[in-house]
């Protein structure tokens, strides 16, 4: 048990008083259709008591818990409320989950990304549940006139053993709501958890399998019009002119106009990544009619010569200068190769690598590359906006509402308090929806046409207006002495524009002579965060390279890694190593045991730490009729306490399949600024007949505070796959997509 100050809780409680009225109404409106674990709310309870902003208790014992973060598929709508329910000590079957409004003053930061949701809400949400339970206990103690310490709870019931008294939470809820928030509350010892650590079905499952889970693309409103945008055909181009008359008289078309997503001189925030801030909008009565007009619109584009803007970033404001030109993938490759041939920006240096390389018994040098990748969320970008004199209602895929609301506010001239961002379920995100320009665009269009509008990007627009995973290249060198010890390690990595090399990641700290360098290449092709940014490339290729070093040294690849980790733990090199060598080794040992590693010689392994989760995978590939297919994957993951095991397992499986798909097939190339494949058919995503037949997921059991799983298990899959393909085919795979394996 740990005692914790209710700093987070108090913040919610203070604010909850002014929320009360609105919260109550919201509850009534949306509850009628809610179903949890098969239980429909047939009757609406007479009374609701707001215990705090996260929790409402109805007079008939339904516990409504708010899910604070937007959901894009990691199931935080289940795992986060589980934390509240755990400390509150209620029966999960009586819990109904409701999406919280966007109110950071109450719920803290509300965003989805960086695998941070579970980690950041771990203490605040449990504190909230514990504080509410404490208030219910106080109410019962007062009512029964007994000491608080003698009251126990179980499954939503308060007990006083000595007098035999008991009361359901809902019977005490009205009184509890009057009680001030406790200054300190006790949190449970993990061994006493009843909900956390047990598998609970996704709270939206029934809605999802009956077509009723609403995405922002599903919003329909009285009088709603449909909008599409026409975007430049290539990066490096901008709007020159368009002929509205060419489509205005087409059936169902209401309006055609151009607009800017940002006012001139606007200072962009760090997520205002947008290559095409001036677009043409077409508005009409139906998607089909607008699409027809979009295809017919006469529009002229021109290359831009100069573009610059001020943008906020992690290191403060800076002026971003966008280079002009129509770029092709062949140019990118040549530039990356050129940069790799020159000295890079030094990120870390231990010992004297140059000298050691000169005198080494064996030197291995390998080059790895990967192309741009579009996020390819299953749901093409769609947003809804309704601008009225009272304010603005917007809904759309948004991972970072806190930056998006400021962009909208500044563009349409409404203060943030008058903007309601609805956090609707997203049909995937993978990092793309940090850049939620579509909400601003919808707001501008609605303001102009004075009607609720739904802005629908086509799949092609969604791909072509991407903020892609950058194209990357890395050159690795390793030096071995005559006894096959790794004595020097050198990585030089970069990309278009860069690839986020973490110089202090493993194997830094484990090798005496170490050098990490990076390079970057300016481009007008927009890139952004993509599942496990930076790591999704570096993690995989580093692990392929380690495999080759192990082979050159004549060592078992798991044993080789464990030796390095032991070295780093016992006698670390340099001042900093951004990993816990024991946890790193722990996942390798677990995967070795669970996969029965020694039983099969034709398999690949890799391990990596990313977003605070350690993961190791063993992959078995089978080649049949010249086609390689992953047969089995064994995954071992250490993400601390696993809040919802089945959901966590699903997330690891998803990481595995996604990574295999992108490693094998993912590639977006450009010709003169234009993406070469904007839709399926030309662009390839993994399908069921290419996915692994079995995935076995194991978690390390410990009591370490949990972290998320959206990204951690991802990078190492790329490496394990490359290593497995080598064992199965005898060929090393250096260049993604592996079906091409060429640079």
């Amino acid at each position, binding site marked *: 048990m740990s005692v914790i100050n209710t700093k987070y809780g108090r913040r919610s409680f203070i604010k909850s008083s002014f929320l009360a009225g609105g919260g109550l109404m919201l509850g009534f409106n949306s509850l009628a259709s809610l179903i949890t674990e098969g239980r429909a709310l047939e009757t609406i309870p007479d009374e609701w008591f707001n215990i705090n902003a996260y929790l409402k208790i109805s007079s008939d014992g339904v516990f409504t818990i708010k899910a604070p973060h937007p959901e894009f598929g990691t199931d935080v709508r289940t795992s986060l409320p589980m934390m509240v329910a755990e400390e509150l000590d209620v029966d999960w079957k009586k819990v109904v989950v409701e999406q919280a409004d966007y109110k950071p003053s109450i719920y803290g930061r509300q965003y989805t990304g960086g695998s941070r949701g579970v980690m950041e809400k771990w203490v605040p949400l449990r504190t909230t549940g514990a504080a509410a339970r404490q208030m219910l206990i106080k109410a019962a103690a007062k009512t029964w006139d007994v000491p608080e310490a003698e009251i126990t709870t179980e499954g939503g019931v308060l007990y006083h053993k000595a007098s035999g008294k008991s009361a359901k939470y809902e019977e005490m809820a009205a009184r509890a709501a009057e009680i001030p928030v406790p200054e300190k509350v006790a949190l449970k010892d993990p061994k006493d958890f009843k909900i956390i650590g047990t598998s609970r079905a996704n709270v939206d499952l029934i809605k999802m399998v009956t077509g009723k889970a609403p995405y922002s693309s599903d919003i329909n409103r009285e009088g709603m019009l449909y909008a599409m945008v026409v975007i430049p055909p290539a990066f490096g181009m901008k709007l020159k002119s368009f002929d509205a008359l060419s489509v205005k008289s087409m059936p169902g078309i209401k309006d055609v106009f151009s607009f800017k997503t940002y006012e001139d001189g606007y200072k962009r925030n760090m997520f205002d990544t947008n290559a095409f801030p001036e677009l043409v909008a077409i508005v009409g009565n139906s998607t089909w009619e607008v699409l027809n007009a979009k295809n017919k619109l006469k529009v002229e584009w021109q290359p831009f010569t100069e573009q610059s803007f001020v943008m906020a970033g992690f290191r403060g404001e800076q002026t971003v200068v966008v280079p002009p030109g129509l770029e092709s993938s062949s140019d990118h490759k040549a530039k990356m190769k050129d940069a790799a041939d020159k000295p890079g920006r030094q990120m870390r240096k231990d010992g004297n690598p140059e000298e050691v390389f000169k005198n080494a018994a064996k030197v291995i040098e390998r080059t790895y590359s990967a192309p741009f990748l579009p996020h390819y969320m299953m749901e093409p970008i769609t947003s809804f906006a309704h601008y009225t004199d009272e304010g603005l209602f917007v809904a759309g895929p948004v991972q970072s509402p806190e930056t998006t609301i400021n962009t909208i506010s500044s563009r349409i001239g409404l203060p943030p308090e008058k903007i309601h961002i609805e956090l609707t379920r997203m049909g995937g995100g993978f990092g793309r929806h940090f850049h939620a320009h579509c909400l601003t665009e919808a707001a501008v269009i609605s303001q102009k046409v004075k009607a609720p509008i739904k802005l629908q990007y086509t*799949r092609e627009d969604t791909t072509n207006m991407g903020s892609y995973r950058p194209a990357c290249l890395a050159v690795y060198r390793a030096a071995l002495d005559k006894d096959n010890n790794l004595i020097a390690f050198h990585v030089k990595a970069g990309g278009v524009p860069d690839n986020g090399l973490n110089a202090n990641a493993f194997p830094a700290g484990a090798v005496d002579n170490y050098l990490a360098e990076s390079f970057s290449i300016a481009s007008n092709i927009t890139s952004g965060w993509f599942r496990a940014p930076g790591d999704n490339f570096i993690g995989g290729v580093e692990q392929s390279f380690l495999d080759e070093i192990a082979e050159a040294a004549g060592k078992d690849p798991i044993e080789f890694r464990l030796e390095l980790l032991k070295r780093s733990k016992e006698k670390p090199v340099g001042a900093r190593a951004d990993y816990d060598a024991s946890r790193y080794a722990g996942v390798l040992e677990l995967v070795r045991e669970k996969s029965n590693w020694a039983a099969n010689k034709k398999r690949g392994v890799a391990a990596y730490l990313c977003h605070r989760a350690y993961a190791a995978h063993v992959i078995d590939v089978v080649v049949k009729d010249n086609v390689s297919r992953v047969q089995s994957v064994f995954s071992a993951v250490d993400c601390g306490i696993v809040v919802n095991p089945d959901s966590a397992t699903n997330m690891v499986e998803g990481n595995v399949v996604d990574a295999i798909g992108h490693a094998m097939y993912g590639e977006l190339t450009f010709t003169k600024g234009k993406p070469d494949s904007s839709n399926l058919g030309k662009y390839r995503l993994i399908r069921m007949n290419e996915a692994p037949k079995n995935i076995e997921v194991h978690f390390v059991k410990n009591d370490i505070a949990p972290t998320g799983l959206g990204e951690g298990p991802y990078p190492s899959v790329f490496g394990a796959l490359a290593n497995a393909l080598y064992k199965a085919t005898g060929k090393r795979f250096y260049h993604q997509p592996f079906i091409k394996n060429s640079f």
Partner: protein
Amino acid sequence: MAVFNLNVNGTKQKVDVDGATPMLWVLRDQLKLTGTKYGCGIAQCGACTIHLNGVATRSCILPVSSIGSKAITTIEGLSELGEHPVQKAWIEHNVAQCGYCQNGQIMAAAALLKNNSKPSEEQIETAMKGNICRCGTYVRIKEAIKSVSRT
């Protein structure tokens, strides 16, 4: 524009649209049946799968004028509260992540199992490879289908 009398989920529906309009948009825009999803618009992802006289069909390339009296079933018509065996299997296997592809996956699986109640692993893969899941839930989808075929 022309008037079409459609049979959707057992109900007669009248729509007045351009005959070339894909059924996907008729369902989503005119009939407000939004369970059927737009993914690619070119019959490559399966998000828009519906049943046309019981056969799994990509509604994104299916002009409304071609339908005539054929019966359309959408995910909303498969069952109201998720009692269809395929939906039940999806719930039991906690299949979904973002969930966006799952309506199409379920419609494809339901059509497969109607024609072949005991599909082999290979038959499942052949029938389902037209349905993309970007979140990568294929292993669970396959398990869910197998569990229905066992009952």
